[in-house]
């Protein structure tokens, strides 16, 4: 027998053992039992454990997470989606990774508690080290080219977080101060940071340290001190803006204005926008069932989505039609629905994995169902 057959045989033995383990645990999987003891092991669904929570300001904190063995790493500037149980309900949010790849293998995100933000308030004020969270692999195209160049970062409020991730990777801070790495010499960075006021700005200290060390040029604009930023002043604030590639992260208003500004001048712009978390809830709306070829048909606020879809010819799963049997549930890809029994609103963003009963929920804005 050739030696090449050996690993093949090993794989076959492993397959066979897996099948025996599956036969012994059916209808569950061996993983369901292993998860009880080793939720972060290789081969498990990607999870992480919160190990440290460092308060940054009164309403922001950095969460340090030990990711599961299958964490594939990230590039500075990327974000990750975290699923955490808040009052018993699994909620998913995206946060920028605020450190470059760390030597200790852990990852960190910095979260600012926003008004009415269920997840952000929970992470900043309630979460405790030891909590298990659910993760997705890092994602996002908001990353710097490895060869370097001239850059302008425009950040507003918590939009600073992906940028801090990039800067910390380029210019690590130690007890002895900011370190200049050979690989970072090709990066010429200016940061224009906008915030309501100086102390309110998270990571402001980091930015100042980097500026004092002379590795970045910092232009800080605080609304209460300098007035609200007018992009017409951009050329005077950053005279060589035309020579730089702009990376911007912040609220939609600022990003839109920048897009117009740069478009007019033919400048390169990369943006990262996090959702604001406020979804407009309406009385009635539209229904989209893309797999069934239904696009934005009218759905009033009093008719169950099940009836609206059936009326439009969609083959819908259904059951009791009174909210009892859960035979009609479907994933809500995106949108808001209202429970006709008690008015309760359920909202979902793409990737949230929210499943709704269609027989007692009506549209509360545009609704996209997976059917």
């Amino acid at each position, binding site marked *: 027998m050739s030696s090449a057959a050996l690993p093949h045989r090993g794989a076959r033995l492993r397959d066979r053992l897996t099948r025996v383990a599956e*036969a012994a645990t*059916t209808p569950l999987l061996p993983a369901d039992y292993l998860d009880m003891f080793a939720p972060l092991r290789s081969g498990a669904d990607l999870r992480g454990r919160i190990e440290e929570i460092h308060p940054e300001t009164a309403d922001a904190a950095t969460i340090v997470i030990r990711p599961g063995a299958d964490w594939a790493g990230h590039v500075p500037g990327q974000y990750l989606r975290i699923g955490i*149980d808040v009052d018993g*309900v*699994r909620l998913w949010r995206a946060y920028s990774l605020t450190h470059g790849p760390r030597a200790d293998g852990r990852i960190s995100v910095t979260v600012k508690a926003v008004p009415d933000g269920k997840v952000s308030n929970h992470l900043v004020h309630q979460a405790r080290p030891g909590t298990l969270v659910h993760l997705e692999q890092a994602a996002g195209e908001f990353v710097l080219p490895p060869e370097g160049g001239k850059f302008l970062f425009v950040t507003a409020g918590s939009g600073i977080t992906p940028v801090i991730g990039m800067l910390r990777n380029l210019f690590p801070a130690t007890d002895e101060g900011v370190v200049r790495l050979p690989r970072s010499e090709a990066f010429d960075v200016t940061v224009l940071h906008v915030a309501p006021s100086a102390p309110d700005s998270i990571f402001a200290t980091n930015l100042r340290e980097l500026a004092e060390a002379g590795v970045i040029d910092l232009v800080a604009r605080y609304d209460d001190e300098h007035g609200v930023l007018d992009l017409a002043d951009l050329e005077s604030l950053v005279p060589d803006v035309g020579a730089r590639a702009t990376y911007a992260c912040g609220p939609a208003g600022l990003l839109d204005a920048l897009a117009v500004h740069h478009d007019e001048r033919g400048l390169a712009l990369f943006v990262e926008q996090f959702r604001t978390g406020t979804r407009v809830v309406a009385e009635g709306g539209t229904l989209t069932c893309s797999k069934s070829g239904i696009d934005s048909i009218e759905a009033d606020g009093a008719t169950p989505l099940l009836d609206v879809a059936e009326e439009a010819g969609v083959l819908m799963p259904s059951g*009791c039609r009174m909210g009892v049997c859960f035979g009609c*549930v479907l994933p809500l890809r995106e949108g808001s629905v209202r429970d006709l029994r*008690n008015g309760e609103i359920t909202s979902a963003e793409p990737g949230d994995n929210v*499943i709704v009963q269609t027989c007692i929920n009506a549209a509360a804005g545009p609704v996209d169902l997976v059917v």
Partner: protein
Amino acid sequence: MTTIQTKSKADQTDPVAHLSAAQVEELGRELDAIRQSVLDTRGERDAAYIRKVIKAQRGLELGSRAVLLASIFPPAWFVGTTGLAVAKIIENMEIGHNVMHGQWDWMRDPKIHSTTWEWDNASPAEQWKHSHNELHHTYTNVIGKDNDLGYGIMRVDEEQRWHPMYLAQPLWNFINACFFEYGIAAYDLELGKNLSSKKRRRSPQFKAAAKVTLKKIRNQMTKDYVVHPLVSGPSALTTLSANFTANLIRNLWTHSVIMCGHFPEGVETFEKKSIDGETRGEWYLRQMLGSANISGSKAMHFMTGNLSHQVEHHLFPDLPSNRYAEIAPQVQDLFRRYGLNYHSAPLPVQVASAWHKVIRLSLPNGASKAPLATVTALTTKQGRRELRRRPAA
């Protein structure tokens, strides 16, 4: 024996004759408010409860199966079998049945969700959800619509026509109790109806469903009667008998508990036409009249998967099971205020009552001396809708 039956024996009293249509709707609103009070406080405490139960159940099952590796020693056999039977009961009742009802869907945890849960039972989750959640819970106790009434093999109501075949129904019921999981699988497949004609036997829908069921049964049997015995080595035969015994205990227990839910004497049944145009209040009322509770300790409620709170479960099948005990006093108070009979008795009393009915109805009507009345229609009389009962033929 329940009060309502004694009353009906005497004068065939309509249990809801004293309620006006407006009162029935007010009853519905009060029940909606109870439901909402649970929804408003549903959260971390409940999530922690179900996670704890699932973890404990898996630990108990794992531990019991580990002990059974040495089942050749009688104490190990006894401990392992008891543990495994308890683990299977908890899995089927407090976890499986309730998760598949969607009681925990609100947590948005894909691993504890009605759309993904598969239980340690012969019947595939998909088929169980259809026959149980959809048919039984919607058409509770409606003769001809709710197959849970006698599971299609027994006569459990005077309105069902007697046939000599029913003489043997106490025996059927006992055999069904011993192999209840297969009874459920056959029932979920509507085997009786689907095997009755060539056309039904050959329907692709039935063939596909039967295939899924057979695969599930094969997997279940392979686990309990092949893999675990083989892994036990010298204890193979004793592990096999332990697993068989655990399944038997689980079957007898679940069958007994489920019989108590709707079969005890005095629980009402309804005619098909009685639910035409049924309002929400009337639906609630039907659930109230058609279910019976088991009284007992916390441990007893837990081991029945809180189906001992059958009344509360039927009113609110999607509320987390750990909350039924909390709302039971409010529901009971509602029964009292609306002059309705809250059926509740200890397990032996309810089991005996259900068996009494099975035995009594194995004989033709009149052979036993207590024909029960059946609610026949929800009709408008004197300007109000009411449930009207008709003496059994």
